[in-house]
C-alpha cells in the first residue's frame, strides 16, 4: 500500500510538472509573450514592460524563474487588475467556487449513487425505466441549458429564487443544482450498470446460497463492490465540476474562480490564465491522488500491485 501511494504520488508530481511546463511554453507562443497585452505601445514602454516582467531574459531563464515562483505560490501579477497578484485573486475567488463545487459534489454523490442502486435493484420495473430515461436525457443537457431553464422557471416565472449572485442560502440552490445535474445523472448511470454487473457475480450467488437476506446481500456484499468504479469517477467528476463552474458562475454571476477565469480569457489576462490553469490542474491532480488512495482503501486487491 505505501508503495502504491508513493507510485501514484510520483506520477501526480510528474503530471503537475508537465502541465506547468506545457502551460508556460504554450503561453510563450503568444506574440510578445504572455505578460503583455497586445495593445500598441511605444518601444520604450514596451522595453520597460519587458524588463518589469523579465521578458528581456532568455526563455529558459524566464521558465526557471516562473517555475520557482510557482513553487513559492507566486504566479506573477495580473495585467488587467493592476497591483494585484494572481495568487491574491485566486486566494479570494477560489473559496467561493470551492463552496459551490463542494455542495454540488455532495449533492451529486448523495443522490446519484442511491438512485443508480435503486434502479439496478428494480431492474426493468417502472422506476428503473424512468431513471434510465431521465439520466440519458440528463447527461445530454448542456449546463447552460439546464441553468437557464432553472432561471426561467424559478426566477422569471415563479419568482421564488434569486438568479444572480450569492447573497444568502437561497441563492445557492440553483447554481448548485445546475452544476450537480450532469454528474448526478452520470453517477446514477454508472452506479446502475456497476450494480447490475455485481448482482450477476458468482459471489452474490454464494451469498444467496449461504442464506443471507436480500437486505444484507445488497448492503454487505453488493454495494461495496459496486461502488468501486464510481469512486474512480470521482476524479473526473471533480474536473467536470470545476469546468462546469466556468459556465455556471458566468450565468449566475457568481464571483468565483470560474467566472474570473472566463473573464481573464476574454480580456486576455495571460498571467491570470496561466496561474489559474496551473492552480486548477494541480488541484485536480491532487484530488485524483486522494481518489486513488481512497480506492486502495476500499479495494483490498489494490495492495497487491
Amino acid at each position, binding site marked *: 500500500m505505501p508503495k502504491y501511494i508513493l507510485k501514484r504520488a510520483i506520477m501526480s508530481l510528474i503530471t503537475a510538472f508537465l502541465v506547468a511546463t506545457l502551460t508556460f511554453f504554450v503561453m510563450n507562443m503568444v506574440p510578445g509573450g504572455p505578460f503583455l497585452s497586445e495593445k500598441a505601445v511605444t518601444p520604450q514602454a514596451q522595453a520597460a514592460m519587458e524588463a518589469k516582467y523579465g521578458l528581456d531574459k532568455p526563455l529558459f531563464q524566464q521558465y526557471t524563474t516562473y517555475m520557482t515562483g510557482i513553487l513559492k505560490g507566486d504566479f506573477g501579477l495580473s495585467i488587467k487588475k493592476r497591483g494585484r497578484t494572481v495568487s491574491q485573486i485566486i486566494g479570494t475567488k477560489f473559496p467561493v467556487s470551492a463552496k459551490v463545487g463542494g455542495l454540488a459534489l455532495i449533492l451529486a454523490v448523495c443522490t446519484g449513487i442511491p438512485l443508480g442502486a435503486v434502479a439496478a435493484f428494480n431492474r426493468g420495473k417502472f422506476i428503473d425505466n424512468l431513471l434510465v430515461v431521465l439520466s440519458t436525457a440528463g447527461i445530454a443537457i448542456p449546463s447552460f441549458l439546464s441553468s437557464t431553464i432553472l432561471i426561467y422557471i424559478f426566477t422569471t416565472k415563479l419568482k421564488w429564487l434569486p438568479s444572480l449572485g450569492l447573497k444568502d442560502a437561497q441563492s445557492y440552490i440553483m447554481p448548485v443544482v445546475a452544476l450537480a445535474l450532469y454528474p448526478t445523472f452520470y453517477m446514477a448511470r454508472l452506479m446502475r450498470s456497476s450494480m447490475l454487473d455485481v448482482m450477476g457475480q*458468482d*459471489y452474490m450467488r454464494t451469498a444467496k446460497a449461504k*442464506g443471507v437476506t436480500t437486505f444484507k446481500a445488497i448492503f454487505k456484499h453488493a454495494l461495496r*463492490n459496486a461502488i468501486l468504479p464510481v469512486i474512480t469517477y470521482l476524479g473526473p467528476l471533480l474536473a467536470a465540476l470545476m469546468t462546469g463552474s466556468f459556465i455556471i458562475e458566468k450565468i449566475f454571476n457568481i464571483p468565483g474562480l470560474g467566472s474570473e477565469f472566463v473573464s481573464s480569457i476574454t480580456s486576455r489576462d495571460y498571467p491570470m490564465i496561466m496561474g489559474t490553469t496551473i492552480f486548477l490542474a494541480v488541484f485536480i491532480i491532487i484530488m485524483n491522488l486522494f481518489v486513488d488512495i481512497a480506492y486502495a482503501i476500499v479495494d483490498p486487491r489494490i495492495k497487491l500491485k
Partner: protein
Amino acid sequence: MSGQYLVDIQEERLSFFTPAGEVKALNNVTLQMREGEVLGIVGESGSGKSVTAYSIMGLTAQNGKIVGGSVEFNGHKIHEMSEKELRKIRGNEVSIIFQDPMTSLNPVWTVGNQIAEAVSLHTDKKGRAAMARAKELLELVGINEPEKRLKQYPHELSGGMRQRVMIAIALACEPKLLIADEPTTALDVTIQAQILELMQELKQKLGMGIIMITHDLGVVASMCDYIAVMYAGEIVEYGTTDDIFYNPKHEYTKGLLRSIPKFHEHDYSKLVPIEGQPVDLLNPPKGCGFAPRCSNCMKLCLTHKPEKNQYEGVHYARCFMQQKEDFLKERGEA
C-alpha cells in the same frame, strides 16, 4: 415416502421464461437420495444437472420456475416454500460449492469474515465465537496457518485454497447435504485430486450426503454410490456406479464412457467423442432427445419418447435399444 429419503424429487418440471420463449430445462425428473449417500449427476452443459441440484435448495434464476412435480428435501416441501423459509435451510441444512472459486468469494471481504458470516447466520455463534468456528473450519479443510488466513482476502489465496475456503463455508453449519457443482473443473489437475480427496475425507468424518455435479465421469467413479446421467433435461440412465460403468444401457452413457481415456489402454483411437450439439430446449424434440446425435438411432427414436426400462436393482435407462433387443429376441423365438 418422506422421511425415508433426504432428497425426494418427483416428476419435477422446471422452465425458464426467456424473451425467446419457455425453455423447458427439466422434464419430469424423478430422483431420490438417502442420507449419507453420494450421488453423481453427470451430463454436459445445459443438460439440467445443475438446475436439478440447485432446485433442491430453491436456487433458481429469477426467470426460472418449477411448473410441475415436487421437490422435497429433509422433509421440507421446497417447491412450496417462500424465499424467507428457504433462507433458513440454505447454508444450514443444505449448502453448495461452486465451480469457480476465483469468482465465488467476495473480493472485498476477508476469508474469515465470509466463513463467519455463514456460521452466524444459522447458529448462536456470533462475532468472536463465529470467528473461532471459522478457524476450526479452516483447519478442518486442511488449510495451514488458519489464524493468518482468516485475515486474508480471497485474492491472496491460490485457487485450491479458495476452493477449500468455499468448502469451509459450505460446512459451516454441518449440512445434511452438500451440493458440489463441478468443484474441480476450474482447478489444476493435481489440485483437483487433492480437493476430491478432501471431500471424501470430510464425508467420512461428517457423514453428510453429497451430490456431485460433473461432466467428468472420472470424478464420479471414485466417489459416488449412485449416478444419474442427464440429457436434455431428463434422467436418461440411473444406477449404482458399477451399473453405469460396467453395464451401461443408454447410448448416451455408452458414448460418455467411450470418450474418457483409460490409462491401461494405450490405443487412443478408441477415444470417441460424441458428435453434434445438444438439443435446443426451446424446441424440445418429439422423440428421444439424444436421437439426432445417436449412432444407433432408429426410426421410432425420432417420433417416440423412450419409456423407463428397469434392470436389476435401481438401475434403469430410457433407450429403445432394449425394445429392439426384446423385439428381435421374441421374433427369433417365434
